């Protein structure tokens, strides 16, 4: 029972206050004369405030619930926002994938038709070159240029086909370092011609990786060629490899690790060049087909699209960033063979 009184009733018949079972508010008039000493009358309005108190309590609870709901709503809004962003990214990826598939289908269909005329041109150019009358330097140069053009057309067709062959990896347990070395061997002439210094920091005893050797060689060849194009006046290409265990710290520092999870053993290969780097605003587009930062006619714009396709096919991840003090740093992450990776220590071989 809650009684709210505006007076101090010193002596009063309690029954007067307990007029009903309800709570009441009593206002009383007292005779405050010293002679009296006792209340002689109670006059007032008694108000039942039980409902008001209950309502106040309900309101307080409602406010508290509302505050909780507001927090929860804010969290849900954040989640929604994040989901929307993810959806947007997924949608863009789907559009890209659909575009790639379209290019691939088109390329595969056109390749046969294009390769046959290229074959005819190559045979024809050889015949003309062989039967060229003496002192026709201009014609010889023209034929040479035409031959170069045929070779370039063939490279474009080949890369388009590689782009379309994204689902045909023949994976085996392979040594990633050996794959890097073979790619460097295949590009020996280009490395010498561009006066590039190669620094290898490959981890000794790197556990094996399940991969399509040919396709991964293509990845490294394309990445190395890009580095060489960026260092046409010479430079240093540093290639490192190491084994790491996935951690949240790693994922928070480098987004390229985010698609992996706790317990994953990973092989990380990095390629750093000392070229001029890539303008920051162009970085989000570098894996798009036909996107190139090289001079017109130098690159096909398909090299990195092929690289991305092959890395995706292996469940790996790749990031390309500008590195301080200059040049580009490529980070390639692939899963290591699980059984064999445990307990294996890796060392750097300088």
């Amino acid at each position, binding site marked *: 029972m809650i009684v709210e009184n505006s007076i101090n009733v010193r002596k009063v018949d309690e029954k007067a206050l307990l007029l009903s079972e309800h709570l009441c508010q009593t206002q009383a008039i007292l005779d405050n004369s010293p002679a009296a000493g006792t209340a002689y009358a109670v006059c007032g309005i008694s108000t039942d405030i039980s409902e008001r108190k209950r309502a106040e309590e309900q309101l307080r609870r409602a406010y508290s619930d509302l505050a909780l709901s507001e927090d929860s709503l804010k969290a849900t809004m954040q989640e929604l926002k994040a989901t929307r962003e993810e959806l947007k990214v997924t949608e863009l990826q789907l559009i890209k994938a659909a575009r790639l598939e379209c290019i691939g289908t088109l390329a595969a269909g056109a390749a*046969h038709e294009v390769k046959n005329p290229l074959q005819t041109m190559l*045979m024809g150019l050889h015949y003309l070159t062989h039967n060229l009358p003496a002192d026709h330097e201009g014609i010889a140069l023209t034929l040479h240029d035409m031959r170069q053009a*045929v070779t370039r057309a063939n490279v474009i067709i080949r890369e388009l086909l590689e782009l379309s062959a994204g689902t045909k990896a023949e994976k085996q347990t392979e040594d990633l370092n050996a794959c890097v070395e073979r790619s460097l061997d295949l590009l020996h002439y280009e490395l010498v011609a561009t006066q590039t210094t190669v620094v290898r920091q490959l981890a000794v005893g790197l556990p094996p990786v399940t991969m399509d050797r040919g396709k991964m060689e293509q990845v490294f060849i394309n990445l190395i060629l890009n580095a060489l194009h960026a260092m046409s006046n010479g430079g240093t290409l540093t290639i490192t490899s190491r084994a790491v265990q996935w951690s949240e710290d790693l994922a928070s520092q480098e987004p390229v690790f985010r698609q992996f999870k706790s317990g994953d053993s990973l092989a990380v290969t990095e390629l750093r060049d000392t070229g001029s780097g890539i303008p920051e605003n162009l970085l989000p587009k570098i894996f798009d087909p036909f996107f190139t930062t090289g001079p017109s006619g130098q690159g096909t714009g398909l090299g990195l699209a092929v690289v991305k396709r092959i890395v995706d096919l292996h469940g790996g991840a790749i990031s390309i960033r500008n590195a301080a003090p200059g040049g580009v740093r490529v980070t390639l992450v692939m899963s290591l063979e699980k059984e064999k990776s445990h307990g294996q220590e890796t060392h750097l071989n300088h």
Partner: protein
Amino acid sequence: MFSCRECSVATWLQDCGRTRNLLKLNLEQTNRYVVRVENTATTALASAESFQPDLILMDVLMPSMGGGELAERLQASPTLRRVPIVFLTAAASTEVSSREGRIGGFDFLAKPTDIQEVIDCIEKHLAFSKKR
């Protein structure tokens, strides 16, 4: 399709007439090969029986009969079964060619191929045939 004889190369079918003729010209101007060209798979079979080539070079895709079927028929012939067959195809890339080197048990060259690659391939088979 092409076939070759020791110190001579005979060539046959291809699905592109212009390439076939240019390949013949390029091979013959080396003065090391005699080349015979055929236009269809059916005439190629009869031609091979009479010409007895040292090597047969042909497309995978040809009118009237596929390269695979023609290869089987050629190998079924008692007089031709030892003749090496090399495919020239637009369906495979040079990388695949250098890595795998074979389609259905036969060597192949990926289009567009340089004439020197064709010559190297012919010479490799001629050298191997001599050893046998």
